[in-house]
C-alpha cells in the first residue's frame, strides 16, 4: 500500500489544530512549534509531490478513494493534476510563511493558530478533492473560521463617514473588524448558496450516480442546464474570486484581518474561487463555459481597471493592497475566459504568482503596521533607511505586481495578454494592459512615499524585521524571483492539465 500523501498534506494542519487546542494551553511557544510542524510537513510533502508528479502521464495522480455515503455516491476521493499541484504548493508556502508572520500574536494565540490551521485543511481539501460534494464541505471549512479570525484578532480601520451615505456608514460600523468579518462571511456564504444549487442541479439532471468529477465529466447535460448551472458556479465561486460587483467584501475583509489571515485569504482563498470556476464550472460544464466566456471576460476587464483605479484612490496602505488583489484577480479570470492555452496557463500561473506576491505584501504591511502603528500612507515616509530589508522586499513585490520581467508577475501577465489577443475578443487586451499601467502608477507611488522619500516627522527609530519574521520574507521573495526566472518549472505541469480541459470546451 502506498502512503496517502494527499491525505497527510490535507489533514496534518487539522491534527496540528487539535494538538494545539488540547495540549498547549497557555504555552505560547509550544503553540508556535506545533503550528510550525503542522505547516512544515505539508510544505515538504508538497515539494516532494512537485518532483514526483509524472509530467508525461499527466491526469490525476496520487489517487485515493474511500466511499463515504454509498447510496448517494459520495466518496472521499482525492487526486491532483498539474493545476492543483501548483496550488497545493502555493498553499503550503503561504501558510508556512504565515505561521512565521503571525509569531507575535499575543492575545488568545492558542485559538488563533488552531483556527488558522483548521482553515488551511479546508483549503488543501478543496484543491485535492475529486468529489464535488467533499469539495464543497472543504470549501465551507475554508470559509467559516474567517469570521472568528477577523472578528477577534482583526484591526478596525480608520474610515471616516463622509458623503451621501455617511449615515449608513455610521449605522453599520463600516471599517470596524466586526463589520468586515460579518460582510465577508455573509458574502461568501451567499456564494455557497449558489454553489449548492449548482451541485444539486448537476446531480439531479445528470442522472449520475456519484459526485465524482471523473463521473460527472462524462455525464451529458442539456445546453440550458449547462448555461444556468455554469452561471450558478461562476457567481458562487466568483464571489470568492472577487468578481465585480460582488467584490466589496474583499477590501474590507483583507484590510481588517490580522496579517496571516490577510496573507492566506488574499493569497490562497481567492484562488480557491478561481480554481472552483475553472475546475467545477469550466471542467464539468464545458459548453456552458464556452457560451458564457464573453460574460466572464467582460467582467474580468471591469475588475482589472476598476480594482486598479480604486487602489489608486486609497490612503490606507492595506486597502491599496486589497484593491490590487481585486485587480489582479481580474487578470486570473480574464486568462480563464480567453479559452486559449496561453491564457489559461497564464491564469493558473497568475493564481500562483499573485498568491505569493500578495502574501508577501500583506506580510510586509503587517510588519510595517506592527512597528509604525500606522497604515496611513501619507503619514509615513523614509522607512527605507530604518527598515532596509522590509523596503527591499516590498519593492520586489511591487515590481512583480506591475509585471517587471524577471519576476513571476511578468510571466503570468504576458501569457494572459497573449491569450487575450488570440481569443475571440481581442479588445480584452486593452483593459488588461491599461490595468498593468495603472498598477505601476499606484504601486510605485506607494513604494516611493513610504520607503524611498524623505523621512517623515512622525516616526523615529523603527526596527527592521527580526528573527522569525525574516523567514516569511526570505521564503516569499525567493519563490517570487525563482518562478520569475524559471517559469518552466510551473508551466510544465500546468499545461498538462489545461490542454485537456480546453479540448473539452472547444471540441465538445
Amino acid at each position, binding site marked *: 500500500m502506498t502512503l496517502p500523501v494527499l491525505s497527510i498534506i490535507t489533514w496534518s494542519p487539522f491534527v496540528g489544530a487539535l494538538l494545539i487546542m488540547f495540549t498547549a494551553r497557555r504555552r505560547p511557544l509550544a503553540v508556535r512549534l506545533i503550528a510550525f510542524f503542522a505547516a512544515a510537513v505539508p510544505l515538504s510533502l508538497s515539494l516532494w509531490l512537485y518532483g514526483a508528479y509524472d509530467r508525461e502521464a499527466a491526469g490525476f495522480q496520487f489517487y485515493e478513494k474511500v466511499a463515504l*455515503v454509498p*447510496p448517494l455516491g459520495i466518496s472521499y476521493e482525492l487526486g491532483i493534476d498539474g493545476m492543483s499541484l501548483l496550488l497545493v504548493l502555493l498553499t503550503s508556502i503561504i501558510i508556512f510563511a504565515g505561521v512565521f508572520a503571525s509569531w507575535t500574536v499575543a492575545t488568545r494565540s492558542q485559538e488563533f493558530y488552531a483556527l488558522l490551521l483548521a482553515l488551511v485543511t479546508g483549503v488543501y481539501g478543496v484543491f485535492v478533492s475529486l468529489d464535488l460534494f467533499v469539495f*464543497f*464541505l472543504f470549501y*465551507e*471549512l475554508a470559509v*467559516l473560521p474567517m*469570521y*472568528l479570525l477577523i*472578528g*477577534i484578532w482583526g484591526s478596525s480601520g480608520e474610515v471616516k463617514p463622509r458623503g451621501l451615505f455617511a449615515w449608513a456608514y455610521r449605522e453599520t460600523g463600516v471599517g470596524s473588524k*466586526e463589520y468586515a*468579518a*460579518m460582510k465577508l*462571511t*455573509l458574502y461568501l*456564504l*451567499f456564494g455557497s*448558496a*449558489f454553489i*449548492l*444549487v449548482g451541485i*444539486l*442541479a448537476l*446531480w*439531479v439532471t445528470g442522472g449520475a450516480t456519484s459526485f465524482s468529477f471523473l463521473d460527472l465529466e462524462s455525464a451529458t447535460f442539456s445546453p440550458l442546464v449547462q448555461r444556468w448551472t455554469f452561471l450558478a458556479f461562476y457567481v458562487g465561486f466568483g464571489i470568492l474570486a472577487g468578481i465585480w460587483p460582488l467584490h466589496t467584501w474583499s477590501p474590507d475583509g483583507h484590510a481588517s484581518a490580522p496579517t496571516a489571515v490577510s496573507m492566506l485569504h488574499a493569497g490562497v482563498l481567492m484562488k480557491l474561487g478561481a480554481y472552483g470556476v475553472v475546475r467545477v464550472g469550466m471542467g464539468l460544464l464545458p459548453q456552458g463555459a464556452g457560451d458564457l466566456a464573453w460574460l466572464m471576460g467582460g467582467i474580468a476587464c471591469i475588475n482589472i481597471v476598476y480594482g486598479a483605479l480604486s487602489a489608486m484612490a486609497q490612503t490606507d496602505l492595506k486597502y491599496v493592497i486589497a484593491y490590487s488583489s481585486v485587480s489582479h484577480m481580474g487578470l486570473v479570470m480574464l486568462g480563464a475566459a480567453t479559452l486559449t492555452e496561453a491564457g489559461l496557463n497564464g491564469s493558473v500561473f497568475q493564481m500562483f504568482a499573485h498568491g505569493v506576491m500578495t502574501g508577501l505584501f500583506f506580510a510586509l504591511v503587517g510588519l510595517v503596521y506592527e512597528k509604525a502603528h500606522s497604515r496611513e500612507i501619507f503619514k509615513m515616509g523614509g522607512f527605507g533607511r530604518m527598515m532596509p530589508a522590509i523596503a527591499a522586499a516590498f519593492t520586489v513585490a511591487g515590481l512583480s505586481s506591475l509585471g517587471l520581467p524577471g519576476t513571476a508577475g511578468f510571466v503570468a501577465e504576458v501569457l494572459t495578454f497573449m491569450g487575450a489577443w488570440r481569443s475571440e475578443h481581442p479588445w480584452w487586451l486593452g483593459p488588461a494592459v491599461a490595468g498593468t499601467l495603472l498598477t505601476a502608477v499606484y504601486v510605485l507611488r506607494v513604494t516611493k512615499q513610504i520607503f524611498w522619500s524623505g523621512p517623515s516627522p512622525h516616526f523615529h527609530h523603527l526596527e527592521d524585521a527580526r528573527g522569525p519574521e525574516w523567514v516569511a520574507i526570505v521564503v516569499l521573495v525567493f519563490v517570487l524571483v525563482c518562478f520569475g526566472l524559471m517559469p518552466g518549472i510551473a508551466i510544465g505541469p500546468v499545461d498538462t492539465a489545461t490542454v485537456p480541459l480546453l479540448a473539452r470546451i472547444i471540441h465538445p
Partner: protein
Amino acid sequence: MSAFALELGLGALLGLVFVATLAARGEDRRWIGWIAVAGVFALGVVSLVVPPVEPVLHGMFVQDGLALFAKRLFLAATFIGLLAGIGQPGPGFARRAGEYYLLLLSSLLGMIVLASARELILLFVAFELMSIPLYVLAGFFKRREEAAEAALKFFLVGSVSSAIMAYGLSLVYGAAGTTDLAAVARTFAAGADPLLVLGLAATFAGFGFKIAAFPFHMWVPDTYEAAGTPFVAWLSVAPKAAGFVALFRVYFEGVGPAVSTWVSAAAGLATLTIVAGNLMALPQQNIKRLLAYSGIAHIGYMLVGFAAASASGTAMVLFYLVAYVFGNMGAFLVADAVSRAEGSESVAAFRGLAQRSPVLALAMLLFLLSLGGIPFVAGFWAKLYVFWAAASAGLYWLVFLGAVLTVVALFYYLLVAKRMYIEAPAVKTPLPIDPALAISVALCALGIVVLGVWPRAVVMAALHVASPLF
C-alpha cells in the same frame, strides 16, 4: 395488545405521576419530575423494541414505521425537555411541579396517539389532547402578566385554528362520506372533488396554526417569550413534529399521483414562511424571540421538503425534524442556562461567554451552526436533503430561495456568536449551570454532532418509513 404498548405505558405513567402529585407534601415537589423522566426513558427503550404491526380497530389506529419513528422522536424530545426542566427555578414552580409534569405528559399522550391516528375523529381528539395542556403550560407562571397574556393569545389562536380544522374535517366527511382516512384518500385519488379539496385546504389552515407556518405564526414569539424556557424548548419542537406527521397522514398517505395537488400551495406557503421567519428574526434582541422567529423559518424549510410531495421529500422532512429537535432544543436550553445565571433573556447576556464557559459557548455555537445549515453538524444534512428532494421534484427556484435565505439566518445566528466569541465578558467567572440542564444540553450536542458526522442511519430509517406512504 402490543399495538398500544406505548399508549398504555404512558397512561400508567400519567397515573403514577398523578398519585405522586396527590401524595406529595412540602414546598419543593420537583422530585416528581424524576418519576416522569425515568418513565419516559423506559418508554423510549420500549419504543425501540416494539415492532410495527398491522392496523387495528378497523384501520383506525396504525402502528407502522412512520408512527414508531415519530413516537421515538417525541419521546426523545420529551426526555430531554423534562430533564432540562427539573431544576427549574421560578415563582411557584417547585410547589406545583406535579401539575407541570402531568400536563406535559398528557400532551405527549396526544402526540403519540396522533402519530397513529388514521381516522378523522381520532385525529381531531388526539390533536386537542395534545393542544389543550399546552395552553395551560404556556400560562403556567400565572402570576406573571405576560404569561397570562401569552397563554390567552395562544389559546384564542389555537381554538380558532381547531375550529377551522373541525370545519374542514366536516367538509371532508361531507364529500367522502366516511371518517376513515384511507377511504378519504381513495376518494381524493379518484378525482378532485372541489368540496373535498376545500375541506382539506381548511384543515391545512388548522395544521398551519399548530406548526406555526406563516401567516398562522403570530402566537409563537409572545408565547415563547413568556413561558418557561425548558417548556418552550420542548414546545418549539415536539408539537411541530406531531403536526408534520399528521400532515403526512392526511395529505400524502395512500393518495398516489394526486399528491401533486398540494405542491404549489405548499411551495407558496414554504416561501412565505421562510422569508417572513428569517426577516422578522433580524431585529430581535431577545434570544427566545430570535429563536422563535428562526423556528418559523425552519418550519418553512420543512415545508420545502413537504412541497416535494414525494417519498424522499417526506423522509427528508423527518430527518430535518430530528436535526431540528436536537439543534433547536439545544439552543433554547443554553439560552435557559444563560438566563438563569444572568437573569436576562437578552442576546447581550451571551457577551463573552466563550471566555467564561468555553464548553457551553462551543455547544451553543454548534447549535447555531446546525440551525444555520453549516457542514459537519446535523442541520447541514437536513437542509441539503430537503433541498435535494425539492430539486428532484423540479422546484429549483424554491431551493435557490431557501439557500439564499439561509445567509440571512446565518447573519442573526452569527450575531449571537459574535457576542459569545468576539466581545469581552463583563466578569470572568464561569457560568453556574444546573447539572440536569447540563446533561440535556450535552445530549443535544451529541445528537447534532453524531448526526452531522454520520447521518446515514437516520436517513435510511426515514426513507424506509416514508416509502410505504406513496
